[in-house]
Each structure stands twice: as C-alpha cells, then as structure tokens.
C-alpha cells in the first residue's frame, strides 16, 4: 500500500525568498516520487521525479527535491521564489508496477507575496 502526505495545504513566501513544500510518503515497494505543478485551469506539469537514482533531484524552473529514505520524505525546494511560481503543487508516489496507480497528495497552494 502506498500513501503520500503533504504537510501544508497553503504556503506563503515573499518573492525572492526560499520555498519549501513538504511531502512524506509510505510505500511497500521502492517508490518513484514526483512533484507536479498545476496553474489555474491548467493540466498538471511534471516538475521533477525520483526513480532510485540520485537522491537529490533537479527539476525545471529551479526546483529541486531530496529523497530521504530514513525520513520517508521528498520535500520540494527552490532558493528564490518568483511570482510565476504561484500555483498548486502535488506530490505523487508510484510503485511503477503493472496496474499500479499513482497516489496524489492533497496538494499545497503556494502563494507568492510581492
């Protein structure tokens, strides 16, 4: 069984300051983990993915995430927030086996303050 918990439903940061969006997971298999971003009335765009290679994963738009097995965490970070980063972010876990379903976290709404 798999699950994913996004610890914050809303995060507000000032433009130019660091971003931290938290995600914890549980999985019976070696998981694949993803972060997706969704802007209003748009589909989901893949930011980055962890698939058992390097534990520090770099994604698009300056985002990165670190897989920490001991903490069962996969937090998303960015050194300096931009106004365009304001969106909903979803942490997703998958076991990548046949008929596996991807499990979404409830999402974190990121607000960027001018």
């Amino acid at each position, binding site marked *: 069984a798999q699950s994913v918990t996004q610890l914050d439903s809303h995060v507000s940061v000032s433009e130019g300051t660091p971003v931290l969006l938290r995600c914890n997971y549980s999985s019976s298999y070696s998981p*694949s983990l*993803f972060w*997706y971003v969704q802007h209003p*009335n*748009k*589909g*989901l*765009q*893949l930011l980055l*993915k962890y*698939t058992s290679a390097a534990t520090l994963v770099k994604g698009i738009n300056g985002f990165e995430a670190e897989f920490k097995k001991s903490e069962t965490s996969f937090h998303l970070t960015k050194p300096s927030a931009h106004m365009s980063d304001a969106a909903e972010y*979803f942490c*997703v876990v*998958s076991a*990548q*086996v*046949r*008929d*596996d*379903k*991807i499990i*979404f*976290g*409830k*999402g974190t*709404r990121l607000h960027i303050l001018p």
Partner: protein
Amino acid sequence: DAMVIQNPRYQVTQFGKPVTLSCSQTLNHNVMYWYQQKSSQAPKLLFHYYDKDFNNEADTPDNFQSRRPNTSFCFLDIRSPGLGDAAMYLCATSRVGQVYGYTFGSGTRLTVV
C-alpha cells in the same frame, strides 16, 4: 511534439444529457488514466486502461464509462451528468516499466447546467 491532447478544453452540458470527453496521445504509452478533479482538491482516479484491460476504481459511479478503441484514443462517457459531476477531467498516460512519470493533458472543464 509527442503529447496528450484533450478535447474540448471547455464543455457545457445539460443536466442528464450524455456527454463524451476525448483524449488522444502520440506517446505510444500503454496505460491511460482518467481523473476527476474538483475545485481545490487533488485529482481522483476514475479508471485506467492497461493496454485493453479496463480497471475501474471501486468508488467510481456507474454513470461514468470509458472506451479505448485503440492505443492512441480514450474516451470518458458520462451517461447522465448531474450537477455534482461538474469538474476538471484530466487524462494521463504512462508506460509501465519505464519510469518517465505520467504525462497529463490540459484537461476538460465540464460545466453542467
């Protein structure tokens, strides 16, 4: 570019009138998913196809059906839409065994009047 395309982007239907949403892909992925996403919520899986094998989620209402006539296309049929079915419907694809993640379409926003 290879992608997942959903048509239409916006769909308005009448209460009780059948409606079909479409999804096509050029990625040659063997798995296709339909998700329902209501406002401020995470996407909820309705069903998915692994090749031609249909997999329904236990809590997906009978009102929702799907067809996959070939690898490239998948349809979501809502037989009798209710007001509670108004949502964004997202199609996604993946190839099991290749951990490329899941590619999502831009979604169809369904309004029921």
